[in-house]
């Protein structure tokens, strides 16, 4: 089997979804080909293990193809957003097996102050690596809040923790990242 990401995608996303709903194997493979790489790296950012990330991608795509009938295509980003939600849920399920978010300590953080300029100036690959070095609990909350855009209420619901725990986890993860960037020096790039 040959996977080629550089091949131009002639079929529209809506048409691709329609073909996948019909059970067309080539369209399903095309959909997998389009999104699997970024989804693998997304899964890896949560579970930090190659085999586990592959399992997460596999389970997520099985769920995507099984539940595709329920999905209604709205606009260009709707399919990816829907698939991303499924993948994040799978990643969190995998993470919950080895990490208990409920036991994470909580700090009273009223107004977390973060040095956002450091994140702006840092190289993207370097930042990605730094996020991977965070502990599981911190990493999950940071990923969900700072990258995926969930609010604390949603994070609390997803991880079965309180909102204050989510806030304190986010604060600690930021502090850790900034400290590491300051220690190692800024890696300028993209």
């Amino acid at each position, binding site marked *: *089997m040959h*996977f080629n*990401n550089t091949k131009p995608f002639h079929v529209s996303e809506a048409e691709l979804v329609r073909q996948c709903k019909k*059970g067309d*194997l080539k369209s*399903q*493979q095309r959909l*997998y080909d389009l999104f*699997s*790489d*970024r989804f*693998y*790296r*997304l899964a890896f*950012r949560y579970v930090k293990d*190659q085999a586990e*990330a*592959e399992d997460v*991608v*596999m389970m997520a*795509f*099985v769920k995507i*193809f*099984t539940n595709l009938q329920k999905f209604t295509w709205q606009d260009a980003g709707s399919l990816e957003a829907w698939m991303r939600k499924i993948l994040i849920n799978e990643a969190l399920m995998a993470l919950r097996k080895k990490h208990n978010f409920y036991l994470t300590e909580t700090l009273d953080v009223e107004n977390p102050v*973060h040095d*956002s*300029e450091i*994140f*702006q100036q840092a190289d*993207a*690959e370097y*930042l*990605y690596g730094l*996020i991977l070095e965070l502990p599981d609990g911190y990493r999950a909350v940071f990923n969900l809040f*700072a*990258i*995926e*855009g969930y609010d604390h209420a949603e994070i609390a619901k997803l991880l079965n923790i309180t909102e204050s725990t989510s806030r304190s986890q986010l604060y600690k993860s930021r502090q850790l990242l900034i400290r590491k960037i300051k220690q190692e020096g800024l890696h300028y790039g*993209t």
Partner: protein
Amino acid sequence: MEPETTLTQKIRTVEQKPVHWKKAEVWFAIHEQISTTQKSYRFYYYAAAVIFFMFFNVYKLTIGNELIQDNSQLFPTLNRVENQNEAPETRVIDYNNITYTQPDPIKHEHQIPVAVMVKNETVDFDHEIDETSIQPTLDDPIANTVETVTLNQGVQPIIGVILVPVNNTVSVKPKRKKLLHKLESIENEFDGSPQNTIVIARIK
């Protein structure tokens, strides 16, 4: 939130870069999983369809039998036409020199013609019968008047002769009529010639 948006964009840009991982193996695993799921779903659909058709056929047969019975009651002439193909075997019963015909109740227990008790007078063997006069024809209006009725299943027809009961009961104490003639003493009537005299006497 500007910095967060920048961070999100940075990370997503990184994630779009191709990396080396077991992409093909994962796809085979996904494909296998999907086909297994589809097969299991297909099996359940087929099983459900088979069960449905079985129940449907049983229901159809039951309803069909009931309709046939209802139709036979509503349209007896239809059954009469159908029964013309297989005529019931008749039994001949002889009773007091009068023969009665009776259909076989085992073979034709559902439908018995009303005019089944056809009285056939015994014919003297010496009597010559004009064969052409008694040959039944299909156009005979008498033959067409034979109606059929449907009896419920399991009811055996009882065909026989109702005899007029003979009242042989005799009263134990017969009524005695009172004699209108006055009985007189023999001495007054008897004049010596008893041969010519009827003696009516009561023995006490």
